[in-house]
């Protein structure tokens, strides 16, 4: 069995990352966490996570950036808000998962060909173009980009939906697409201005 | 002049039992807040005569803060209710004198709320800073001048009249 160093030296901890997390909207109360673990216990997906939400929070405030951003945990969050409802310190765990996901996408460290980040990205693209989301098209795109075989797997579900009139392949967008684009672009330019500062 | 940042002067009347104690607590807790407030201690916010507030503005304060116990919590049973009634009337008067909203503030701060002292003082300092100097003494001088001129005109016209009648 190959030996691997498990100890963390202080130089391995990224303080800036910890500060960044707590400075984000939603991350404010993070440092107040008392590690009670109620978030993990309430989480319906914690049984599949590599780190429980509680551990992830502690790792984030300790600056274990690499482990946090490449963890499976953040992509398993379904935004059910159970953790947030139970947290005795009112930590916005769901929002913290969002902000970690955004950072992971930005830094490109999410698991390869893993469908969830792709879903998020495709979703965003579709909104930017049409203003609305066509679920069928979204699902089709998703599987084309990640796993062909899954698409075949899902064909049964799709056929069922089609028969019941619940699937449409005609993308219907909003009328004021130009307006929506102007709004979203205004945010881009605002943010690039800020970044320039 | 415009290069120096305007630092407002705020006079605060704090009741001994709640708000003054809260300010002591803020100190003991080493909370940091703006240095613009000068506290005058009274036993009860009910002791604060509206004249005190007017006097403070007249002597050059840019803001006046009055702090007492929460309704129902007055150390003297109901002194703060009396304060509230009196100060509502005062607010109207101040408006008539040209004192803008935000320069006079009444706050209930209990002895346990050191943090509220900090936030109220900071908020009020920012608000008054944004309103700029009040300079009521300057306004008084202007008004005095106007009245003097008016008086002079009245006297002159009276003299004129007398001349005609004579």
């Amino acid at each position: 069995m190959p030996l691997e160093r498990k100890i963390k030296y202080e130089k391995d901890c990224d303080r800036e990352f910890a500060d960044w997390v707590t400075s984000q909207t939603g991350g404010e109360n993070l440092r107040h966490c008392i590690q009670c673990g109620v978030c993990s216990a309430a989480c319906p997906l914690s049984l599949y996570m590599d780190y429980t939400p509680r551990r992830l929070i502690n790792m984030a405030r300790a600056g274990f950036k690499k482990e946090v951003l490449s963890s499976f945990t953040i992509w398993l969050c379904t935004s059910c808000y159970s953790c947030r409802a139970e947290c005795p310190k009112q930590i916005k765990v769901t929002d913290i998962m969002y902000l970690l996901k955004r950072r992971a996408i930005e830094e490109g460290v999410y698991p390869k060909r893993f469908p969830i980040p792709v879903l998020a990205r495709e979703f965003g693209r579709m909104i930017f173009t049409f203003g609305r989301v066509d679920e069928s098209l979204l699902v089709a795109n998703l599987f084309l980009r990640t796993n062909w075989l899954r698409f075949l797997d899902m064909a049964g579900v799709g056929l069922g939906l089609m028969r019941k009139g619940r699937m449409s392949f005609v993308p219907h967008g909003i009328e004021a697409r130009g307006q929506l684009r102007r709004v979203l672009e205004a945010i881009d330019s605002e943010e690039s201005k800020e970044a320039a500062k | 002049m415009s290069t120096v940042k305007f630092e407002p002067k705020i006079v605060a009347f704090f009741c001994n039992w709640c708000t003054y104690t809260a300010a002591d607590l803020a100190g003991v807790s080493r909370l940091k807040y703006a240095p613009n407030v000068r506290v005058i201690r009274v036993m009860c916010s009910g002791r604060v005569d509206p004249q005190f507030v007017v006097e403070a503005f007249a002597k050059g304060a840019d803001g006046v803060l009055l702090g007492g116990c929460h309704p129902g919590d007055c150390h003297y049973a109901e002194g703060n209710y009396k304060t509230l009634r009196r100060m509502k009337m005062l607010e109207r008067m101040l408006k008539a004198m040209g004192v803008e909203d935000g320069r006079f503030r009444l706050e209930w701060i209990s002895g346990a709320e050191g943090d509220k002292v900090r936030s109220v003082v900071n908020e009020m300092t920012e608000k008054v800073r944004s309103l700029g100097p009040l300079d009521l003494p300057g306004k008084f001088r202007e008004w005095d001048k106007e009245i003097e001129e008016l008086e002079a005109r009245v006297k002159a016209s009276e003299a004129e009249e007398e001349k005609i009648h004579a």
Partner: protein
Amino acid sequence: MPKKDHKTNGLPRVGFYICHCGSNIAGTIDVAAVREYAAGLPGVAVARDYKYMCSDPGQELIASDIEKYGLERIVVSACSPNLHEETFRKAAAKGGLNPFRVQMVNIREHASWVHTDRASATEKAKDLARAAVARVVHHRALERKRVPVDPNVLVVGGGIAGIHAALTLANAGKKVTLVEKEATIGGHMALFDKTFPTLDCAACILTPKMSAVKAHPNIRLWTWSEVEKVEGYVGNYKVTVKRKPRYVNEDLCVGCMECIDACVYKEPKFHDKFNQGLGKRKPVYIDFPQATPKVVLVDPETCLQLKTGKCQKKCASVCDRNAFDFGQKERSEEIQVGSIVLATGFRTYDAKKDKQYGYGRYPGVYTALEVERLVNASGPTSGEIKLRDGREPKAVGIIHCVGSRDEKSNKWCSRVCCMYSLKLAHLIKEHSGAEVYNFYIDMRAPGKAYEEFYDKLLGEGVHFVRGRVAEVTDWAVSPEEEGKLVMRVEDTLAGIVRRIPVDMVVLSTGLEPQADAQEVRRRFNIGCGSEGFFQERHPKLAPVNTFTDGVYIAGACQGPRDIPDTVAQAGAAAAEALALIDAGHVELEPNTSAVAEAECSGCKTCVPLCPYGAVSFDEAKRKAAINEVLCKGCGVCAAACPSGSITQNLFGDDEIFSEIEGVLAK
């Protein structure tokens, strides 16, 4: 009369002293600059700075300067007057100056500790110095009123705190009235089986003290009674006590309880509050066998006679003392006391509020107080651990911090739950042999022999899982979970989420202020902290005093605490009351108001304003008059007087106007 030199221009000669307070003040404020500035203010004959003004040499400096420079006023720029005003008044008196000719400037709590910019903090200190010098000129020589202290004491609340305070005072020869709202004294402690960490039986140590209260010639015990109104001031309180009807003459009943057997209800069928609803009682009842006073009472909500007027009254007919009196009415009694000890205790968190734990939904979920009754030999199951359905539990989970350390309910740590949970874990295991799990966030065992008790439990094989339980549910994922209560929790030390099936869940509910804490504190004119517990005068140096002189607090009404701390505090509160009584008198602040008769227009505006009825109207003279003894010095009348004829000592118009002008002058 000291000579006036030309330097003060005929103004009274002021001595100005500024304190460094080590680096507490001098670290942020340029003390020398303020001293120099003050030296140039009108009237100031001498200005000095000193490392610690409150030290003996600091005080001596003031006293000797008074003579040396003929000082007539003193200004001390240091800390809060609430801390050291008395110190400097005494120093002035030592130098032969009337103590009320002193004014303090608070540049520590209100400046050096709250500001960081040296220049602006120093500027502020100068402004405040100028104002104090301007105001102190107007200070008149005043005398303190002395009023005698009534040696009788009122103790409110008959839990272990009230019992201990009452006995201490009574043993010192003082007459005590102990008022308790329940029918018996004993409070929460009377519900417990054993006490941590010694595991001695609660009843064995409590009931002798309860009997001692009843038997003490210096204690008047009023149970089933509540304080309605408090008037007066330190040393002289008039208290009205509401005495609820028991429908039984307390002086006649000997507690033989034959009436309970005789009641027309053959079986007990009504909610038994003392046993937390786990047992039943009859309309005529006594809370528990050692209730003190040992007197029965009748519940008007359930008694047939009181509800309908139609009952055979078998209870009354078997009573050979003729103690029953169905016509009893609520009455009020007035008592005079000099001091008051409040020991009104706590209530436990309402477990129904945390729906995720299923209290009230699953019969297997209990509160800790219920379990105290279950394990109690004199409780409803005679000490056997039996569930509501009669089964004996094979596995029990105890959840710590229910209604504690949670911003959704109570933020604070309730201090006793870790220890009582350990105690219950031990007792449950001992009584039933069940597997016991403790679910805790942090184990808090900071008392004498507490950590050792935790160690004992670890050795006993009680399971400890560090994690806050998310849910108690009856949804099963496997056959062994069927029919069980499943606890979902992260074992945080292992980093693994677990599902643990049990038969019984115990919720270790936290301690809260009593439901009527706000009303009670208003009645006694004291304060509450933001969490709702009674506020002490100083968290470290005056923990049993309040902001109202003569009113002391003891026990869990001031914050969660265990029995040893409660008893210690009760002793301290009794000692404070004794110190007041033995001094024989109190000196009142002379900051009262007075009417200048010549200027009073007789408009009567002031009369209804005074909450203490100190302002009256002399019909013959057509002038207002203020009773100096009743006046508490709020100054509301002075502020309202349209003719300016009411003056408050130390807070007169001249004094305050000078201060206003002082802080603003350039």
